[in-house]
């Protein structure tokens, strides 16, 4: 079971991740713990999307650097 986040809470979260690099890195590293510590509902769907976002960012950078370097894209942006 998990609590749902409202759109306003998601917007607060986006806002803080935009302006606060340290918070963003902590959140990406361990979303469930950071959400709980910061008083947000631990919404399993949001946690999953944050984890996906982290994987996509890593995958995007990796894939795109490979493309720039001439390595064929396997079409999958996520690592592993």
């Amino acid at each position, binding site marked *: 079971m998990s609590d749902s986040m409202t759109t306003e809470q998601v917007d607060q979260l986006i806002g803080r991740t*935009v302006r*606060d690099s340290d918070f*963003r890195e902590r959140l990406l590293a361990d979303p469930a713990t950071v959400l709980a510590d910061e008083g947000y509902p631990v919404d399993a769907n*949001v946690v999953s999307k944050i984890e996906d976002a982290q994987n996509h*960012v890593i*995958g*995007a*950078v990796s894939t*795109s650097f490979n493309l720039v370097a001439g390595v064929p894209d396997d079409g999958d942006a996520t690592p592993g």
Partner: protein
Amino acid sequence: MTPDQIRSLYDDGYAARYDAWFLLTPDHGFQEKMRIELFTLQLLTRGVSAWLDVACGTGFFLKHGRSHGNLTVTGLDLSPAMLARAREANPDAELIEGDFLESHQALEGRFGLVSSLWGAYGLQQSLDDVFQLIDNLTRWTAPGGTVFMPVFMPERFVALQESGELMAGVTLDEPDGSAWTYLEPDGKCHSRVLAPPVGLLSERFSQAFERVSIEPYPPAPGVPMAALIARNRH
């Protein structure tokens, strides 16, 4: 800049190096900016069934910003060279070559999320054109939907100039930072890019959305921007 000037600027060579120069490089805070925007898109596409990226360029964000596989993605761009890259990256996307100042009736009210990234609005010739773009983004957004449009922060351009930290090649055309030019090392020129006060842009969105938030990106000696997010279109 005119549409022909923009098409000439964003040619095949430019499209080939675009992601490396403007998205992936850690220089000027560009990679961190890309990371912020991908993260934001991942959360904003949650619960959305259709996303339109206006001035989609190489399609990098359409490819990597999706949070789920059931999302229908559409891109609109003026440059055939950039769209060719976008097609390679997003074979499932509807990609439209066209001017975002035109009405594109077929797009009206279709999208839960409409984005326009990397300051494409600044390449217009007047503030009226920027307002026309905002009105189009609004019309293409479904009722209850969201617009995400990162915006330039003119006052930070001025602060960077005063501290001698303006990015190499960038010069201010107006002392208040409301227009600037970027001459690239290879001679490509973004001439007189518009950076109207953020409050003017926010106010325009506020006429059609329940709320508009502005979140400045962390300070970086590159191109100072903030995330503008307009929520819940009337």
